[in-house]
């Protein structure tokens, strides 16, 4: 494993419309284990942001604690980052988002961080439809403390230690749907072709966008008997369909077979092009999405892809009717009512 980022960059690296190469979206070199699924997700984030030509400094990346939460160091080095407290990233993003609605908030969390210690904050960020992308790097175990089962480990799944997990698993997409999430997707760190467009769509979505990414832990949970291993997920993943994301600036040039496809225009004018594979799922119908998730789970399948999306989502700022100018840009003139008003208040208190 290398421990230094090579300085050399190929002179012909493709640039996006801002003139940035993909290297401009990379971060420090990863210190995660070689082969860790999380690194692939970081790569997918880099690719999605580069292809969307986002300004790196207009993105804020936030995380909690754990292997997953270390990951933001390894992408978007020009963005402000915040490695906060275990399970508390959603509250930090909530405050940050209230302060400045104009940045893109990218939250990265793990299964321990989200489904155990941070379950409450996760649930309430979903309820409020906070405008953010929430990526769970889900490996079913606590990596940084050496492999204990997490709350997303399937019942009967065994990690490297060998004992089957006796407790039922928390299914984050299922939970999020019940809580009213407006964008729910699941993917696999080993399937960049699916993950990158999902991340792009999540970024364009206005509201809370959950992507639960199964991301095998090569050190503690990649053994036979684990339902979060590379092999198991490859064998049992079933995609809802293929997703192609077309940013507003580009024209749709690809051709798709007729009949099973649907174009969806997002808030920012981008187009999501869906090709359905699962005939029983309508990803714009919450009940249909919930049923499909349960059904596949009962059949031992892992449903991946876009599971649900509310096209008319209203985020927290819409609901609260906050100023369109970011609150952190307001000055004394906007905020301080002055002494004269105070004199009237005094008069009412005598």
């Amino acid at each position, binding site marked *: 494993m290398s421990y230094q980022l090579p300085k050399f960059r190929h002179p012909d690296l493709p640039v996006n419309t801002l003139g940035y190469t993909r290297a401009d979206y990379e971060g420090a070199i990863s210190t995660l284990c070689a082969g860790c699924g999380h690194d692939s997700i970081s790569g997918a984030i880099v690719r999605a942001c580069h292809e969307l030509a986002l300004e790196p*400094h207009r993105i*804020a990346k936030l995380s909690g604690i754990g292997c997953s939460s270390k990951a*933001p160091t390894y992408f978007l080095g020009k963005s*402000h980052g915040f*490695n906060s407290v275990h399970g508390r990233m959603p509250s*930090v993003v909530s405050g940050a988002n209230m302060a*400045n609605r104009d940045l893109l908030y990218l939250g990265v969390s793990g299964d321990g961080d989200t489904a155990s210690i941070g379950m409450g904050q996760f649930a309430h960020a979903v309820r409020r439809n906070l405008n953010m992308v929430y990526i769970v790097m889900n490996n079913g175990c606590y990596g940084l403390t050496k492999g204990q089962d997490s709350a997303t480990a399937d019942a009967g799944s065994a990690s490297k230690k060998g004992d089957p997990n006796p407790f039922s698993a928390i299914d984050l997409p299922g939970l999020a749907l019940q809580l009213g999430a407006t964008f729910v997707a699941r993917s696999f760190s080993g399937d960049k072709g699916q993950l990158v467009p999902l991340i792009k769509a999540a970024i364009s979505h206005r509201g809370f966008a959950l992507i639960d990414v199964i991301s095998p832990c090569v050190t503690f949970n990649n053994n036979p008997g684990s339902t979060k291993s590379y092999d198991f997920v490859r064998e049992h993943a079933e995609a809802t369909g293929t997703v192609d994301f077309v940013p507003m600036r580009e024209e749709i040039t690809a051709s798709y077979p007729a009949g099973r496809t649907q174009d969806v225009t997002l808030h920012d004018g981008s187009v999501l092009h869906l090709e359905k594979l699962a005939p029983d799922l309508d990803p714009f119908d919450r009940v249909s999405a919930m049923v499909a998730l349960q059904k596949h789970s009962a059949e031992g399948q892992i449903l991946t892809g876009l599971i649900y999306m509310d096209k008319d989502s209203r985020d927290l700022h819409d609901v609260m009717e*906050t100023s369109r100018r970011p*609150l952190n840009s307001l000055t004394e003139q906007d905020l301080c009512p002055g002494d004269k008003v105070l004199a009237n208040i005094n008069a009412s*208190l005598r």
Partner: protein
Amino acid sequence: MQALQSVNEFVIKFANVNGTGSASANNLFAKAIFRMGLPVCPKNIFPSNIQGLPTWYEVRVSERGYLGRRGGVDIMLSVNPQSMPQDIKEVEPGGYFIYDNTKPLDLRLMRNDVNIIGIPLTRMCNEEYEDPRQRQLFRNVIYVGALAALLDIDFAVLTGLVEDQFKGKDKLILPNIHALELGYQYAQEHFDCPLGIRVRASDKVGDNILLDGNTALGLGAIYGGATVAAWYPITPSTSVVDAFDRYAKRLRIDPGTGRKNYAILQAEDELAAIGMVVGASWNGARAFTATSGPGLSLMSEFLGLAYFAEIPTVLFDVQRAGPSTGMPTRTQQSDVLSAAYASHGDTKQVLLFPSTPRECFDFGALSFDLAERLQTPIILMTDLDLGMNDNMSPPLTWDDARRYDRGKVLNAEQLEEMERYGRYLDVDGDGICYRTIPGTHPDKGAFFTRGTSRDEYAVYTEKGEEYEKNMHRLMAKWETIKEWVPRPVETQSEQGTDTAILFYGTSEESSMEARDYLAEDGVPLNAMRVRAFPFNHEVADFIARHERVFVIEQNRDAQLRTLLMAEFELGPDKLKSVLCFDGNPISARNIRKQILQQMPGYNVTPLRRERVVAGAEISS
């Protein structure tokens, strides 16, 4: 029997059942006295309950301007049979016990040394009103009318207040005035009015206002430029955010767009509330939360992060009686130590101690300047007594030329000119480094905020010497902070003395009143009111100049004394404790007694230590 005689100096206490509308009637009484130019201090003593339990309202009237609890009750007005046995016992000999005698007083409760006045309030209401709710509500207004006759309150002031109170709901004005008249007439016809205790119009109020500390804090946040409030409901702090909300709806709606120049998030718990404040502050907005003891415990993890990662954070702690749920509707100053050292690891937090609504407003607004200037949490420590009771206070003022102090924040131009930016680089040598707000510059100034150890450039490190260097710098910053926080207020005795009192927050009024009594007892005292932690050198000098210093506070463990001893490395002998922690505001008589007991040469029977500590037991 000798009846108490006093004009404009007395304590009256109302005993009611909660949920019966008594609070607004009692408030009408207090405000009428205030409008007659007399300083008043009403205190609501209420249960953790919505309806049906005993509740009291104690009003100190003092033309001399004593606004703390004196101790003792001169007039008890009891309309609650549940609490009557206790109520009548509390009355001072020669005092008055006014009660609803629709049902005669139990003879076993009778006292010969107290003037008993019976008014058949329930019967009068039953005869006058059909509707049960009206019978309940107007009973309270009737006794206020009776008190007007008994205490010689200007009736026109009362009717004026009723008119002000029901402006816009005019149909309610006449029925309320009628109820006042019913009580007034009854008292005039049946008793020798006025009593020995009475009021006379004066001019001692000046331009003061009557305001509760929580509303003042909410206004302080408005004026201080807070745009994000995140909170979780908890008594006694809830009304801080309620006030912020109320005034923001009036004063913070953008006139052009009709949209809000603020955001209030009711969080799922206190963990999230403080997380939201940290997130918003990190992102350059002024944000605050308000909570009480249990919430402070939950917030301590984030307070450690904010201390270590140096994120401006404003927290208003309205203290109540702990530990655990304790007595949630009673007052204490018992979060001092847990706030001062909040969080695991080596932490020290900045505390502010306001003692009046005016100071709640001033310190509330100042908190945001200090948090950004010092890049650390500012915990403003008030309590239920100050927060939820109307207190007489100087009016609120604002200097329109004042600009917010945003502290050391680099803008895009400054970043552009920099070779290399280091978030934790002490450029100015005062321990305070330069922040950047996310999104400022395309490729300069971004860094990773984290709770883990890092070097001066915010890069993760586990090198012991880098960690130590940073912790030392935080102590250098702590020294700088001493220059920025509000200085203590000192009052010198005219006679020379080697003995002093030291107090903070709501202990001020009673302490200064006790000081006057003690001067008459031949114990002159210098006084210091501490207004912030860290303590600046004036506090150290003050203690050094005295032989003994009584530290007056409202908790069991003498928390500020402990803090003084720890920070100044003082031995235990010099600082004596005067304590009250029964959930009532400390009284002047109690303070006087405890100080006399501890003065050398005073012939009082030595008390066992536990009785001295249990200040409440020996309170009058």
